[in-house]
């Protein structure tokens, strides 16, 4: 479905990509854009291919077809086929859905690793780690604990904080609400909103918690299995009865 992006300055343009694992096609003909300052959510049923699309954008799988363009404000970079560590250096931070911390490292070491390979200024890295511990008090409290021993919600916070250490341009978040109690969920999503507003970091958010995702995001895309089914502002999606019934559980 074509969308009007003429009035939008896209920082990320995904153009008709296909993601496959060998013979398995996980997603095909996927296009989406993220405009300056936006939070965009990508919804859809289990197995639709959301995680695969996110992985393709993060460089963890190379798309079999299509192009991905990323505008960092100075140059437009072609991302498709570049390995993940190169994209991380361009400012794309990916927080996967599972195995999100380094279990045999302490909380502080995990944060430090978030910038160690991306920032050359060691003092700035230390400052960034400290300011994130102020933002996430639970991490300061658990500073010297092995990250593998944190609770699920604490690990989620650590992973988000780690992604922020090197001051990324774009954050890709795969189901950040998994395992969060309602109160923590509210806090984390509030924090994401603030990070988006204050730090100007755009976000692509894959979510199962549709209500929360639509609250947070400016626009939504909905995938059916393997392909795109809807794109538009969140209010329109909430009003669309067919989609609401099909995927969103009323």
């Amino acid at each position, binding site marked *: 479905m074509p969308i009007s992006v003429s009035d939008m300055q896209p920082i990320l343009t995904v153009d008709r990509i296909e993601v496959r694992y060998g013979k398995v096609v996980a997603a095909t003909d996927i296009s989406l854009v993220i405009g300056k300052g936006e939070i965009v959510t990508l919804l859809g049923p289990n197995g639709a291919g959301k995680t695969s699309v996110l992985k393709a954008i*993060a*460089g*963890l799988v190379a798309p079999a077809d299509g192009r991905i363009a990323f505008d960092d404000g100075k140059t437009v970079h072609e991302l498709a086929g570049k*390995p*993940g*560590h190169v994209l*991380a*250096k361009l400012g794309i*931070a*990916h*927080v*996967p859905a599972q*195995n*999100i911390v*380094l*279990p*045999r*490292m302490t909380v502080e070491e995990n944060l430090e*690793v*978030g910038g*160690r*390979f*991306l920032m050359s200024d060691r003092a700035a890295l230390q400052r960034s780690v400290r300011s994130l511990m102020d933002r996430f008090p639970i991490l300061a409290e658990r500073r010297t604990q092995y990250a593998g021993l944190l609770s699920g919600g604490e690990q989620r916070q650590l992973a988000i904080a*780690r*992604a922020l250490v*090197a001051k990324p341009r774009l954050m890709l978040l795969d189901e950040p609400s998994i395992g969060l109690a309602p109160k923590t969920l509210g806090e984390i999503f509030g924090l994401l909103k603030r990070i988006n507003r204050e730090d100007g970091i755009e976000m692509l958010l894959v979510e199962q918690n549709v209500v929360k995702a639509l609250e947070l995001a400016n626009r939504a895309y909905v995938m059916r299995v393997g392909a795109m089914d809807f794109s538009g502002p969140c209010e329109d999606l909430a009003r669309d009865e067919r989609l609401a019934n099909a995927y969103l559980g009323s």
Partner: protein
Amino acid sequence: MAEYLFEQFLIGISTGAIYAIVAIGYNLVFGVMNVLNLSHGAVMMVGSFGVLLLFYLGIDNFWLAVAFGIALALVTGLLVERIAVRPLKGNWWNIKVATLGAAMFLENFVTRLTDGRPMPYPRPFKPVYYTIVGDFEVSNVQLFLIACSLGLMVAMMLFLRHTTPGKAIRVVAQNPDLAQCVGVNVQQTMVLGFALSAALAGCAGILNAVTFGSTYPFVGQFLGLKGLVILIVAGIGNVRGCLIVALVLGVLESFSVVAGGSQYRDLVAYSALVLTLLVRPHGLFGEEGRTGREI
């Protein structure tokens, strides 16, 4: 008698420290690539013969020869990675067979070149014996070897803990996808892990040859197997555990030789393996669910 026991204890520490270097070499490759490199022993052998090669070429400098031996082991290890590991794309069984093949090739190649006889080995310097008490003596060579092995181990642990490439190795070992997300070049880090492992193998091969005063083309089979036993008893993925288990095993072996003769040496090692696995299937320092993807 006490002097004799102490002497055996020192020999045990000295062989144990060499075992530890071998086990950590396995651990590095296991950690970053999640594969078992069965050419590890053969690369040790190549390192020990590299030293002899330089002497054979007429360069009569022990330290230069050691540097050459380590470099030769490193290059051999990198070749194995390029030819027998990388093309197989992480296929666990294929890599085991391919690296075993590489080991056989190397061992038989060196056998061809040397007729397979044990070769006498040079010493770093003229041994001087110090009398400690009564009949008990230690040589400066012996102390030097122990210092080298333990120093290498400590240096390795500090490297993994505190340097940027060391951290990259630990991050890749714990989660290669996450490593990419934080900007680690995973491919490069795997090669680095392999290179370090091969260089350590070279060191172990040379230290072992100096200790026994000789080397032979199949020396890596015995050393490599000991390293594997330690890796499994300690629990895969644990560097400090490897050091402890290796030292204990070295001393245990040494004392079992005193008690029963040299035929008891391996009996002790493999009994320790079986007993440990009966009591703790994940190794002494291992945890359930850990596969070596962690250092």
